[in-house]
């Protein structure tokens, strides 16, 4: 039994769900950031796996872009988290709830 694309899809799915679980359950903003990274990686695995099984490089190019995006996102997220911390002395995302209406 060889490794099929469905294995990778299942792996990607599991990884994504774990990331999603992290986003929904953790209150620490840093954990948010890390969970999002996990989800992005799950998507990347999908892209690379399909690129391999289709035999072209489109998926890989996409994955590279995703990485660049993830790097940028983390940089911005870091900034936000630091400001959050400076204002609230905490990184709990449920504390700052004034930004509604």
């Amino acid at each position, binding site marked *: *039994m*060889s*490794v099929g694309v469905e*294995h*990778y899809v299942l*792996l990607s799915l*599991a*990884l994504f769900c*774990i*990331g999603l*679980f*992290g986003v929904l*359950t*953790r209150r*620490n903003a*840093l*954990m948010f*950031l*890390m*969970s999002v*990274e*996990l989800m992005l*990686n799950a998507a*990347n*695995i999908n892209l*690379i*796996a399909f*690129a*391999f099984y289709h035999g072209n490089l489109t998926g*890989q190019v996409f*994955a*590279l872009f995703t*990485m*660049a995006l*993830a*790097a940028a996102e*983390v*940089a911005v997220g*870091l900034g936000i*988290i*630091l400001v959050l*911390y400076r204002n609230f*002395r905490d*990184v709990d995302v449920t504390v700052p709830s004034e930004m509604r209406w």
Partner: protein
Amino acid sequence: MTYELIAFALFAVITLASAVGVVLLQDPWHSALLLGLALISVAVHYVMLAAEFVAMMQILVYVGGVLILIAFAVMLTQVDTEEPDEEVTRA
């Protein structure tokens, strides 16, 4: 073929286990370290999928950039909550 399968299963388990660790551990510092492990094992998956360049980029960008940034954030936000404790203990 079987080796491939074994390799896939092994690294899949490592990836998932460390991912679960990332979201479940209470200390963000431990989570960050496990995230590094998960990212490296994903890079191994890329190598197995014949995407060596992407795997290299994964290591460079994620482990070398993103993870460092996260570690940086963890340390910056952790300092203040621990420092008062230290001060308390010193006092």
